[in-house]
Structure formats: C-alpha cells, structure tokens
C-alpha cells in the first residue's frame, strides 16, 4: 500500500473539517456567495455605466460636455441652443461645439428608447468611420440606428421606424462601442426638438478645445462667465449633472454592508455548530498540548476557506448574472457591465472579511473549551 507521507498542516486540518460536512459547507458557501454575487453584479454594472459616461463624453474626440447647471439628472438639462452656442464659441480655448438633444421616447413597440438629436451638418464626419451599413442622415426624415437599437427594433437600412408615431427612414447603422450610444437612435435635431417639445433647446454641447488649451481653465471660465452652465470631463465629475452614478456606487457599499452582516451571521452559525459538534475533538487537541491560539487559528482558517470558496462561486455567478441582466431587452440599451480587477478584489476582501469576522466568536468559544469538560462531553 502506497503511504501518503505528506506532513499534516493546519491548512490540511481545516480543509478536512470542511470536507467532512459537505452539505453544510456548500450551503454556507452559497449563503456567503449571495452577497458576493450582489457585489460583483452591481459593481460591474456601475463600472460599465462609468465607462459609458466617459466614452459618451469622448465621442467624436470631444473634450467636454456642457450642461445646464444645477440639474439633478442630465436629461433634465435644457439649454437655449443659439445663445449658448455663441457663448461657448466666444470662450478662449474653444475650437468647435456640437449641440446634442437627448430624449427618451417610445419607438415602435418599445416603451422607451434613447434618441440623440444632432444638426444634419454636425453629424460628424468621424461618425462615418463607425458606420456598419448605409450612410449618415442627410434629410430631416432620415435616422440612423446604433447596432443594439437595430437589434432591439429588428430594423435595417431602408426600413421605416415610427418614433412617437412619426415615420422616419433608416438610412444607416453605426457602432461606437458604447452601449448607451449603440442602443440609441440618432435623429435630425429639428425633428427631435419638435417631437420632444423643446424647440430651439438642446440638452448639452460637445466641446472640442484648441490644441494646447488648458481644460481646467476653460471649464473654470465657462462656469464663471456663464453661471447657468456647467462642464464635465468624465465620470469623475459627472455628479455635477447627474448624481445617479454616485448614488448607485453608494448602494454598492450598502449592499456590501448588508452582505457583510448576513454572511457573517451565516458563518458564525455554521462555525458555532461546528465547534459545538467538535467539542470533544477540541478537548483532545487541548489535552495533547494545543494552545488556545492554535485552536483559534484552525477555526478562523476554516472560515477563511469558506470565504475563499464563496468568493470564487460568488464572482462566477455575479459575472453570469450581470451579463444576463444586460441581455434583457430594455436593459441591453443601457447596461454593459465591466469586470475589472477592483470588482473581484472587493468581492474577495468582503467574503474573507465577513467569514473571518463571523468565525471570531466561535473560535474564541473553542479556545476556551476546558479540556476536562470537553473530554467528559458526549
């Protein structure tokens, strides 16, 4: 018989203790993993949203987006088109501005889709490189679809599409690689202003700066000289016009905290049961000279093992859940989860932390087991 001559380690003992109760270990892993799933799914979705914001601002190589100041949601921004355009063009450092109107309207059988209004002359040449098929609109009754919108509407070049009941002809399909843009319809500005009841008004201006212009200085000047305007450069300062991202990020921490508490309670329950069941075993360990700290280390190691298993299972399920959510018909126009190392690191830290925290009380209880009483324990 081949003998296993590997030395016994604390890690090995902790593993055996978990493996010998497979159902309890699995259920605890799932219990802790649920919190990890929530963290991964929410965090990746928020990261995706931040990425979309950054990409949206940078579309066509713009440097800034200028909105109406003091709005709580970007879509509520409303700027008088002509005077704002003139004001921005008069600002030193500004090279070019492009007016955009953002509006959510019913399209065909979809209750709401995002539409972007652009002046025909400002449907930038850069967009030509992004055309998947067809061309850029050249008249007021033509639109182009992002690839996700095209898929959602099942329309192609040459088809008609009803936007709030009014017919438009699809002349092109584009892909910008940004989910919120690819899920939208680009509509001639004048028609969208009429459809949305915002004649001569737009949502924001894309601002292109002159080479070498100091972005911060330009923003400061715009905001100082025009108190009704505010400028953003990316997701980092987007809360100036929409606090949604910051609120969602805050929710992640709340969910993490709830997961921390629930998971810690689950681990505490499991480890407490385990310690009670093993009272006699722990007594034997104490009787053969194991110190209290060695007992604590063994119990905490078992809990840490549970945390790692929960993190792995939770991360895998979180990725699947986030991807599945982004495939839902309505969500696919807005959601594109991003899975960065920070998300997984956060998930591992939370899972490990809550597992170890949950194990502390049972571990201390185990350490305080009197060997004499434990050996009498049946």
């Amino acid at each position, binding site marked *: *018989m081949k003998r*296993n001559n590997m030395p016994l*380690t604390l890690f090995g003992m902790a593993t055996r*203790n978990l493996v010998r109760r497979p159902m309890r270990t699995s259920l605890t892993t799932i219990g802790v993993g649920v919190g990890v799933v929530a963290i991964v799914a929410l965090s990746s979705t928020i990261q995706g949203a931040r990425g979309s914001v950054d990409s949206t601002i940078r579309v066509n190589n713009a440097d800034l987006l200028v909105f109406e100041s003091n709005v709580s949601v970007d879509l509520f921004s409303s700027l008088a088109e002509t005077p704002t355009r003139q004001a921005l063009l008069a600002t030193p450092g500004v090279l070019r501005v492009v007016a955009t109107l953002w509006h959510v309207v019913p399209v065909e059988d979809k209750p709401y889709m995002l539409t972007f209004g652009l002046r025909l002359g400002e449907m930038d040449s850069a967009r030509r490189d992004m055309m998947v098929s067809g061309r850029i609109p050249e008249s007021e009754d033509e639109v182009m679809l992002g690839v996700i919108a095209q898929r959602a509407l099942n329309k192609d070049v040459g088809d008609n599409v009803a936007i709030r009941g009014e017919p438009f002809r699809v002349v092109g399909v584009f892909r910008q690689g940004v989910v919120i843009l690819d899920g939208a319809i680009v509509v001639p500005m004048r028609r969208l202003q009429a459809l949305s009841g915002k004649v001569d008004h737009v949502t924001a201006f894309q601002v292109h700066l002159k080479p070498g212009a100091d972005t911060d200085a330009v923003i400061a000047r715009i905001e100082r000289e025009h108190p009704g305007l505010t400028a953003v450069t990316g997701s980092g300062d987007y809360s100036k016009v929409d606090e949604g991202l910051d609120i969602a990020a805050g929710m992640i921490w709340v969910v993490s905290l709830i997961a921390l508490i629930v998971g810690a309670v689950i681990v505490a329950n499991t480890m407490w049961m385990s310690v009670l069941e093993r009272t006699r*075993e722990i007594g034997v*360990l104490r009787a053969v*000279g*194991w110190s209290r700290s060695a007992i604590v280390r063994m119990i905490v190691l078992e809990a840490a093992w549970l945390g790692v298993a929960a993190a792995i299972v939770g991360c895998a399920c979180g990725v699947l859940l986030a991807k599945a959510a982004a495939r839902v018909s309505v969500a696919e126009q807005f959601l594109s989860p991003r899975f960065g190392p920070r998300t997984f690191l956060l998930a591992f830290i939370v899972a490990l932390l809550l597992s170890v925290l949950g194990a502390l009380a049972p571990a201390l209880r185990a350490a305080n087991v009197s060997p004499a009483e434990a050996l009498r324990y049946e």
Partner: protein
Amino acid sequence: MNESNTGNGVLLSARGLVKHFENGNVRAVDGLDLDIMRQEFVAICGPSGCGKSTLLNLIAAIDRPDRGTLTVAGRSLASLDRRDADAYRRDTVGLVFQLHNLLASLTALENVQVPMMAAATSAAARCERAPALLESVGLLDRADALPSVLSGGERQRVALARALANEPEILLADEPTGALDSESGQRLLNLLEDLRRQSHMTLIVVTHDEKVARRADRILHMLDGRIEA
C-alpha cells in the same frame, strides 16, 4: 505485583490533593497523598466514582486541583498558568484514553502528528517520526487508514503512538483496555510495557482490570477520593 522500582527518585508528589465538583457536593479527590518514582509502572484501581480518572486529569494538568500540592518533574501543577499548562501537557505527559479519541477526519499517520504540531516539530521531523511511531505499534501498514476503518485495538494502538509523539516523561492511560477484547487488551499492554522500558517512561494506568493491575510495579487502591493504606 512486580518488584517495585524506586531507585530513580520521585517524579510525582501529591500532598493533601483536593478536587471537588458540583460546589463541593462531589469529592472526587479528597486529601490525597501520593509519591510516584521515575520509570515506575503504577496501576490505580478502585470502584467507579472513586476519583481515579479525576486524579489522572489532575496529573495531566487537564484539571486544576482545588487545594493541596501536586508536583511533577519539579513543576507545581497548581500554579501553572494556561500557557505553561499547555506546554506541560505537550512536552511532559502522553495521554491514552479509554475511548481512543482519535480525530475522525485524519488518518492514523496524521493523528500521530497532531501533538507534534503543537510542539512545532518541523514537517520533516514529523514525516520521519510519525511512521516510526506507527511502526513501533505495528500499524505502519495502516498509516493511511481513517479511524472509522480501524478495529478497536488498532485505534488504541494509534492512540498510544500519538501519546508517545512528543517523547513524554509520563504516560497516563485511563482504562486503556476497557473497550477492547481480551486478546487486543493483552497485546496493547505488552506494547505499553515494551515501549515504557525502551523509553524509560513512568507509566500510570487507571484500570478496573485485575490482569492489567498485576503487571504494574505497584498497585494503588483508591476509595472515596483517597489512596487506601
């Protein structure tokens, strides 16, 4: 009874040793005086409830005396703090229980390594010593077996190998043959005696069994928490 071995000095000395339970209603050890010499084989006999196992627990520093003095190898057990008691149990005594008390999830070889982990014995030394101990109890071929597949006698032999892991000065055995059939019990006793002679340990056995007691250098009879004269 064999000839008493008293030529190596006193290893254990108890004076007025008291251990009560249930607020003094149960006087398990009640003013006990005792001397045990180095390398002596002592059998402690007596009826159930006379305090034999409690005395063994006190000698093993598993329990603390309420009163009196208990000195083993120059150390006063009553004054040991927790850390010193851990070290004493780890380094000075080896324990064999009536029920083997092996860890169910560990193999025979791993169970033998458990006390060595407490002693921070290196992995290499553990890998060398644990098989040697199993070989000394005739179970090297069962090294990878879990306790659940070992016979009662085999489990007690693994427990004996575990008790010897850190080369203790005293081996304490509480009814070591109590759960074994006659043949397995005799085999375990032969082994205990052989190993004691080889390693010059002091052996203290608590037993009901006359056959076990007759092998000892000295038999002590306990009654109502005291050694009978």
